[in-house]
């Protein structure tokens, strides 16, 4: 039997997902024995036209990382979708928009102005902004169009499976790849992690009563190593985040930021997290409540760190 063909692609992402894949270590050799990698821009020299020349459905599995925020990324997502039998959203960006998804707090115009005109290190007296097309003496030069709104992979093409994480932990990645190699993939639509519960279920910290009088930012306190971080006033997303990562961040004294996505049955991870955080505020006095909440400086960035494009609102109204 021919080896399954696998494609890997990165769209709007930092490259961490490709590193995440390498994290599987020696298992990488097992993977290479079991499958043929036909397309992987970060590691192999394959051109888009080589993919275009492939027959539809000829790739068995595509591991796609990164969100969709340009016409090029959208084109390749659609192309790889047509060529692949199974499409997997790999990592937080493909799954929920990820960190690039926070661009949905702004629009294209605001982003362009910030990046090409306002930043202190930029000198651009002629106010030149990137154009999708430029007529040079030698011919036309083109660039992809930057979208106004960052989209998830599933908002762009049909997706069969999700591997969460920023980046996915090696155990999670290998769990999915092993299932793929052995041909026992779970039902379509599954978010592949080895936990059905929240990060708190994997967290060894001691939990008692959650009553918060003051929220802190991570740099403001050195947390007690034994006690639940939320109880110490750090907004920890463990309560609203699917497990499978082994609670690595809380174990190391950093609050969970929510990269594994929502727990089952939740449509909006950020609102769920916000709801939980608001509920533990220990005050019945409107003024005191407002004062406690004022310590959460950036609610959108705190609650929707990885999930803004996948949220109910999808973007800010600007």
């Amino acid at each position, binding site marked *: 039997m021919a080896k399954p063909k696998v494609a890997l692609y990165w769209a709007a992402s930092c490259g961490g997902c490709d590193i995440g894949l390498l994290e599987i270590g020696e298992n990488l050799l097992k993977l290479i024995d079991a499958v043929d990698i036909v397309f992987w821009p970060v590691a192999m020299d394959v051109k888009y036209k080589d993919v275009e020349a492939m027959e539809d459905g000829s790739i068995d599995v595509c591991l796609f990382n990164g969100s969709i925020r340009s016409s090029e990324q959208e084109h390749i997502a659609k192309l790889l979708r047509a060529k692949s039998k199974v499409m997997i959203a790999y990592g937080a960006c493909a799954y929920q928009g990820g960190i690039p998804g926070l661009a949905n707090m702004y629009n294209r115009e605001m982003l362009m102005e910030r990046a090409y005109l306002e930043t202190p290190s930029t000198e651009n007296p002629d106010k030149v902004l990137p154009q999708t097309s430029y007529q040079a003496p030698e011919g036309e030069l083109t660039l992809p169009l930057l979208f106004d709104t960052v989209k998830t992979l599933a908002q762009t093409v049909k997706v069969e499976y999700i591997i969460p994480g920023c980046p996915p932990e090696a155990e999670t990645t290998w769990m999915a790849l092993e299932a793929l190699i052995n041909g026992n993939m779970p039902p379509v639509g599954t978010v592949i992690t080895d936990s059905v519960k929240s990060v708190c279920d994997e967290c060894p910290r001691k939990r008692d009563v959650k009553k918060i009088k003051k929220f802190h930012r991570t740099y403001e306190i050195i947390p007690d190593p034994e006690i639940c971080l939320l109880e110490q006033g750090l907004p920890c997303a463990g309560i609203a985040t699917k497990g499978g990562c082994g609670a690595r961040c809380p174990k190391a004294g950093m609050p969970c930021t929510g990269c594994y996505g929502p727990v089952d049955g939740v449509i909006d991870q950020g609102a769920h997290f916000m709801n939980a955080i608001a509920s533990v505020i220990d005050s019945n006095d409107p003024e005191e*409540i407002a004062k406690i909440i004022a310590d959460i400086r950036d609610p959108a960035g705190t609650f929707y760190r990885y999930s803004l494009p996948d949220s109910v609102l999808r973007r800010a109204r600007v």
Partner: protein
Amino acid sequence: MSFEPTILGILCNWCSYSGADLAGTSRKKYPANIRIIRVMCSGRVDPVFILKALQSGADGVLVLGCHPGDCHYTSGNYKAMRRMEMLKKLAEQMGIEDDRIRLDWVAASEGDRFAEIIKDMTEKVKKLGPFPRDGGDNG
């Protein structure tokens, strides 16, 4: 034709829904823009209900509960108070105008107050215009 907003009212069973009922039986006049859903307590209202309502067709969302201290379940309305305060801060960042989301208190005997709140909120949301459901996305 002038814009007629759709306002979702989420009312607690014990005080506010009875207050709305009293407004009806006392034949108080108030705008027909409100659509009411009854919940057992304002503490049941998850912020996602409000976001989803806006995204699904509401131009404003009004949550009404028992006055502080009067909650049938002792503290549900205080929970609502904390959640709405947090939601309003998030809404401001997300470009949702303050007048689109409102938490207020109506007791079972306050039919007049209920009618006044509906009138006031309808006028304010009318001025704001429809909620931009697509978020101004232009590709």
